[in-house]
Structure formats: C-alpha cells, structure tokens
C-alpha cells in the first residue's frame, strides 16, 4: 500500500493537482483497508445503465470534475436512484445542470448508498509544531455548531482512538442515545487507526498531504463506510517526519 499511496499522491502533486478527485480518494481509502461504497466510474458518453447493472440500489450519483471539491455546493450530487434507467436519466439531467454552471464533468461516480447509521467525521491536518494530527467528530451540528471534535498527534494507538471517541460531548449518540441502536465503535476505531495509526495514511502521506477529510463516515451497528473523502495536497515543500 505504501507504494500505491506515495505513487498516487506524488503523481497528483506532480500534475499540479490541489486535491484528489473522489474516485482516487476512495481508492486510497480502500487500499488502506477502509470500507467505501461499491461504485463504478462512468466516462462521459459511456452507457450508464449497463455500467451500473452490478450495483445494488439505491444509488448515489456524484459528478467528477477537475477543480470541484465541494460537489454538493454546486448541486453535483443526486441520491436515491432506484434502478439503471433512473441512473441514466439522472446522469443526463446532471450533465445539463453542470453545463449551466459552466462545469465540464470528467466522469460520473455511481455508488451504492450506505445503510443508515451515525454520521462521523474523520480528518487529518499537518500541525506546524507536531506534524500529522488526526481528528474525529460527529457529523452535523456536533462538528458544525458545537465544534465537538477530538484531536491526537499521529501515530495514534488503539487506546488513543477509544479516548478520542469518549472525549466527544456527543459520545452518547454512538452508544445509542435517543432510542437509536448503538453503532459499531470498533469499526470507527479501526478507521482511525488506518488513517492515523503507525502504518496509517497520515504517517505514510506526511510529505504529500496537507489535509484529509472523510465526511461522512457512516457507521451502523455493523460497519463503517467512508461515503465521501477529500485529500488536499501540500503546496509547500516536502517535509519528512521520519527524518
């Protein structure tokens, strides 16, 4: 995986890209052992209905376009697509909508929608004093309104991951507050270690990454699935924490 991650990130930087596109980002996650939705990338013009035939509905459609980092902000996402015909129609509609905004799509990303669960946010940043740091929070108001997030310096250990989660003011939500089912805490811990652990994405990508953001990670009773991921690359000169 080291090879893959370094290669992917380095190549992207060499091409002057500021951020990985979503399929590439998800591939990085997948190769790090993190669940991502089953998906297909369909080139513009290819047969959408045929391409999505192996996916299980409902599907999400997301535009893949250079320079578009926040897809929902430009209306580049459609959800709850129920079959192949609807998929083709959604792609066609989206193309028109994107054109109207002057966006030229590179491709379509079709994904199986994750089962219901708690929304978790996992992030990574590069601290000027401590280098790679990992962050976790609960989606929605917890992160956005209450700034309810926990940080650790990488690499983290399993105990750190558990403590990050128990530090959250909204921790009770994960344990099944308000009558909902408790979610799979171990699955979140596993993702945190794969992102921020000894052999995790942040430690391996320190010299190339500026920021990563898995938002949301949907966590059900059974599993955690990274539904969206942003990888922002460094602009400044490379540093190496292993020096």
């Amino acid at each position, binding site marked *: 995986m080291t090879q893959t991650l370094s290669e992917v990130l380095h190549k992207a930087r060499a091409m002057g890209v500021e951020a990985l596109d979503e399929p590439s980002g998800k591939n990085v996650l997948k190769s790090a052992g993190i669940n991502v939705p089953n998906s297909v990338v369909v080139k513009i013009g290819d047969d959408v209905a045929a391409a999505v035939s192996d996916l299980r509905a409902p599907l999400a459609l997301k535009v893949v376009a250079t320079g578009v980092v926040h897809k929902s902000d430009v209306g580049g996402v459609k959800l709850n697509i129920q079959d192949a015909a609807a998929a083709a129609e959604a792609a066609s509609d989206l193309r028109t909508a994107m054109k109207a905004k002057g966006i030229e799509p590179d491709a379509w990303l079709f994904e199986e929608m994750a089962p219901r669960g708690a929304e978790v946010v996992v992030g990574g940043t590069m601290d*000027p004093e401590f*280098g790679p740091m990992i962050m976790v929070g609960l989606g929605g108001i917890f992160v956005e309104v209450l700034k309810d997030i926990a940080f650790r310096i990488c690499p983290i250990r399993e105990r750190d991951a558990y403590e990050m989660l128990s530090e959250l003011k909204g921790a009770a939500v994960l344990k099944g507050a308000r009558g909902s089912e408790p979610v799979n805490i171990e699955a979140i811990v596993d993702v945190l270690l794969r992102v921020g652990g000894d052999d995790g994405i942040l430690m391996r990508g320190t010299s190339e990454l500026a920021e990563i953001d898995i938002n949301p990670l949907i966590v059900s009773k059974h599993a955690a699935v990274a539904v969206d991921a942003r990888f922002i690359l460094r602009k400044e000169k490379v540093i190496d924490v292993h020096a």
Partner: protein
Amino acid sequence: MSTLEEFRPLFHPARIAVVGASTTSVSGGNRFIRNLKNFGYAGTIIPIHPKAEEIEGLRAYQSLADVPGQIDYAYVAVAAATAPGVVRNSGGKVRFAQVMSSGFSEIVGGTDLEADLVAAAREVGTRVIGPNCLGTYSPAARLTFTEKATPEPGSIGVVCQSGGLGIDIIRRGQNRGLRYSGLVTIGNASDLGASELIEYFLEDDKTRTIGLYLESTREGRRLFEVLRRANARKPVVLLKGGRTSQGQRAAASHTGALAGSHSGWEALCRQTGTVLTDTLDDFLDALMATQGMDLRPSATSRVVLFGNGGGTSVLGTDAFDRAGFSVGAFADDTLTKLEALGLPAGSSVANPIDVPAGALQQDEGRVAEKIISTIAASGAADAVVIHVNMTVIMGFRHVDMLGNIIQAVLRVRQEHSPGMHIVLVLRSDGDSETEERKREYRQRATSNGVAVFDELAQAARGLAAIRIVETYRSGATV
C-alpha cells in the same frame, strides 16, 4: 556517550567560564560569579575579558580559546551581535554555552543572528542553550543564576522557556516546599530544546518528577516521541504559555514562539499522560502533589475530607466533586468505629468529617491519628485530605496539635503505604504570625514527603494531577 554523561557537564560543571563580567560595573556576569561564590560552588570559575587580568578576584583570560583545558559550562552575557563570535572563537573548548543575551529570533529581524549563533556552535562542537534566557540551577552542584535559591537538592527536574518564570519556579516553589534536581532556562531554544533535557531527567536517578514551562517547540515530533516512549514512568507536568490566541501572540514577542495549534498540546498531554496546567500556581501545586506521593496502581477516585470547619467542608466537597472525585458516605461499620471515638457535639463523622478544633486538641490532638487510622483500615479511601484552619488551631497554644497531626500522618502512611494518599491543607488567614507558623509546619511536612496545599480546591487539583498519571499508567481508557 549516554545522555547522563552528555549532560553531566551542564548539571555538574567542574569548570565554568563567564563571558560578560565587567571590571568597572556590576553586570550580569559579575552577579553570576558572586551568586556562584555565595552558593558555595566548589569548582573553578574562569572570567573571560578582552583586557582584564582579574575579575571579581579571579584570574581572567582574553578569550575562551585561551583558557587551558576544557570548559564544562560557559555563561555568556554579551551584546547579542557579539555572541556568535564568542562561541565561534572558543577553540571548541566549551561543552555547553548558555547565551543569556536577548535580541535574537524573539525580535523582528533577529532570526539570522540566531541562525548564525547555532551555526557557530555546530562548527566548534558546542551545545548552545538559549539565547534569551537566564541560566541553570543545579543545587547539588551549587550552580545557580539567582540569589536566595536553596542549596538543598530535590527530586524535581525543570525545563523552563522563560528566565523570569524560572526564578519564580525556584523561589515560589522552594517556599512551598518544592526541591529541585535541576532547572534549565532555555529561552528561544535555538539548539538545545526541551526534549533532550527531558531525556536527561528521565535517566537521572535523582529526578522523580519533571516540570516544563514551554511557549512553543521547534521539535514537536521529538518531544512527542520522547514523552511517549517515557510512558509516564516519571510524572511530567506542563505549564503551557500561549494556549489562547491572544496569549500566543504575546508569546511570539517573548520567545519567538511558533503559531502552533492549541489542540496539538492538549493531544500531546493526553497521549503521554502529561499533566497540563494553566497557571504558575496550578503548576507548582501539581509538582507538589507528584513530589510528595507514591502513585497508586489504579486511579485515585474516593476521597475522604477531614478537618475543622463546616463551611469549609462543604466548599471542599464541592471542589472535589468538580474535580471528579467521589466524597462518598462511609460504610456502616466504618461509621460505627468513627462514632465510637466519642467526638463531642458539633462533630460530624460522616464524610466530610468535620471536627471542631476544640475536639482535635483532645488527648494532645491524638484523636486525629485515630480517625486517620480508622479510615486507612477501612479501605474506604484512595486519598485522605486533612485540612486545618491555622487561625483556629493557633488559639490552642498549649498543644502542638498540628505537629501531632503531621506525626500521625507519617505513622499511618508508614503502616498503610502506599494504599492511600494523605495530603495536608494548611489554611491561613494571611496574618504574619499565622504565616510564620504555617511556614514552619509546611517545612516539617514537606521535608517528610507530605504534600501541603493552601486550600482544599488546590488539593483537589493536586490530586487530579496525580490521577492523570495513575490513569495513564494503569492503561485504563479515560
């Protein structure tokens, strides 16, 4: 070379050079020489002066390079611009050069000069401490940079980024009963940073606890790795300056601090079992707690309060509740035993135990020992906090009640150690007579390893500091 050997010349210098003493006025260098002499420093002091043959009655040399033989430690207090030259032209004789001068990276335009200082040091194989600092304190070696420091060595090793706070830590600390194995002010930390000194204190047998005042670090990864590897085997207490945005701005003009994130330092502490404090007093209280106590194998949680004063007991219980401790009711059999002591009306033997001073003087104040023993035997407490209102106690002049209580603490601790922490709170009214007595009793208690605090809220914070280290070591998830 081991870390211990590497830093021996700094903490136990046999030969000290002083650059910046004057023949005509009393400069920092002169004061340093006088302090060293007064403090009983037994090694060789070598003033460096371009012209003088003698300074402060000592044979002077023209430059460091002229000095015959090695120099363990050079005290450099010259104009900033000349400091790199002093180091560069030292003939590689100096192991540690501490540069006091300010005017480096902490001021606009001073970064290049600091880089040159470090380059000079690397060229000649000298380690530079500072610049923009005040000196090093090592009582066992009779090395000091401030007057009125106690020569009595102790078990606390300190790395302090601010010189002025270094003096405060030494002096306010020693008056509270803290004793140090060493304290180094590192200022801008251009070459020698906190992490290497921490490594030294971790190795040093005399050091049991490490205290840090830091405003920023240029070696965050190393600091993280050193503390992580240490695994809290010695308690570490951090006073972090510039944790708020406005404080960070102030720190930038003080030691040229980097604008790091506040969450980074919090994370560092959580991941290494380091105690994070916000004020000098909290820092000293946390050091007091760790100096005085053997840590328990599991986290301290159940606290018993015992002392005189109902309102104080109530507010003290509030403080311990806020600090996350349980001040729980006793089991019936313990309560029965305490009631059997026959304390007078107005006493309450529930937890908090509130016994009027009048009752405490019974049997020369030995009733306190019975109470503490009963609690210890019950196993109901992880910590007992004994609080005494000095004002009230001093009304009873014919009995050395407080002396008896301290003796009782020591005896009980010997019998039941290390199952239960016992700390003392000496509450004073600030009157000069009361303060004098308090000073005396505090000295008696702390020199016997009993932690003493000024108020119950401070004791709660001290025990909370202990709990952080105990929790971390126990491996329990917070």
